């Protein structure tokens, strides 16, 4: 179990796919931790030199879709610009997300590729709130 100031995540063992289970006291923290879990699936986040900054603004009709869209944004930037992020700051107002992420261009000479994520899916997707805060599960196609 990895720990993050805003929450914690663990990988879900799945025969053909990969997944993360995220817990955080706040919804913002859950979005930040999910992003961190996503990056940690791909490479060792502590090997990243987070010098490049990117801003995000997203809006969706429900919180589950917003979580998937957020992770899809990160995957899109990895696929097109090679960017992988290690630090995140998320602000949520209802179903609008505004975020900043810091990271760098993935370099196979320096960074270990743990898993290539092909897609973020809605399969067994869950976002729930309990008295501890927020919990989410996301499955990736790999």
């Amino acid at each position, binding site marked *: 179990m990895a720990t993050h100031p805003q929450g914690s995540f663990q*990988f879900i*063992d*799945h*025969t*053909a796919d*990969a997944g993360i289970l995220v817990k955080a006291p706040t919804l913002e923290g859950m979005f930040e931790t999910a992003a961190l879990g996503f990056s940690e699936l*791909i490479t060792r986040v502590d090997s990243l030199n987070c010098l490049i900054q990117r801003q995000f603004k997203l809006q969706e009709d429900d919180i*589950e*879709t917003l979580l998937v869209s957020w992770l*899809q944004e990160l995957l*899109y930037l*990895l*696929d*097109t610009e*090679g960017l992988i992020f290690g630090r995140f700051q998320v602000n949520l107002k209802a179903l609008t997300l505004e975020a900043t992420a810091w990271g760098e*261009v*993935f370099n*196979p000479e320096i960074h*270990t*590729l*743990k*898993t*290539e994520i*092909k*897609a*973020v*899916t*809605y*399969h*067994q*997707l869950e976002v729930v709130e309990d008295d501890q805060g927020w919990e989410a599960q996301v499955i990736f*196609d*790999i």
Partner: protein
Amino acid sequence: MRSGLERKEVIGHIRKLVETLFRNIPSGVGSKRKDLRLSKAELKKVLVKGVGWAVKQGFGLEEDPEYIEERGCIQGADPDLISDRALERGKAQLGTLGSGNHFVEVGYVDEVYDEHAAKALGLFLDQVTIIVHTGSRGLGHQVCDDYIKILMKSTQKYGIELPDRQLCCAPIASEEGRQYLAAMAGAANYAFANRQIIFHWVRESFERVFQMSSERLGLRLIYDVCHNIAKIETHRVDGKERKLCVHRKGATRAFPPHHPDTPLAYKDVGQPVLIPGDMGRYSYVLVGTEQAMAETFGSTCHGAGRVMSRKQAMRVSKGRAIIRELEDQGITVRSAGKATVREEIPEAYKDVSQVVDVVSGAGISKKVARLRPMGVIKG
């Protein structure tokens, strides 16, 4: 692909060959060839024309499309139904292998089950073969992501109840259904072109190592077949010809002898089917049958399938030198990601021989030859 080479002619060059393939065919995150850059307009042509585009650009031979499902181009693709985001992901990844279970494998025919069919496919004992496994890359996944969003709304609109949101859908004849099929055809055509470009680089790699033209090396396409795709086809149902949408998920097409879509050269034996196994065991060449047409809408399985999760595979392989273990079995492996080789260890997969015996026992495809790997590149 087949070659005119025998195992003994390649065995001494296998390391150099694997290294050359690894250099020529980009694999792993963010890898690309500097000499293949596409504008958006050009990429749209790829989506419409598939392999035809690639051959016109000089990737491969005029005869290649004859040996590809749908001649490497599914009709009706509409690039305007594919988002800018998908195009952006696709632009950088055409001609790349990707990671995970995608691979290029050099092997040899170690057993022939059906002499007649093997001869028709140009296969013989000890012959060196090449298998390429990759698909539509990030472009295909983006098309999927984009249409899942649309189809989740359709699911509500048409009152379809589902156990999982990822299963969202729409009637085939609806506006959304038609649009999705036209976008999917574009992604499939991209995948055909992607593999065609890689076939070309396989030929170039062999030419470089053996200092001989690919014609003289006899590098010809046996067959390129899709999996995980929906196709509009005609099948007999309850004695009547019907037009159907056949979705082959985890399955591949296996058309019988004399089917109009089976290549002329194989008309007496049936459409070739390729079932790759894990990198330590075997892969199989089979052909489609009438029974598949009657029982499974002309379909069979497409691979071995995993038995271990990637995490389990990592645990089992901990502390083991997998590349060295495979080397001891005469299999040279080169991978962009260190973890990939451990996640893809042979025991993480079902034994493909058992899987193939099931489909041939059921009569939905017929064994032609078994291939044993010699060299593998992975993402």
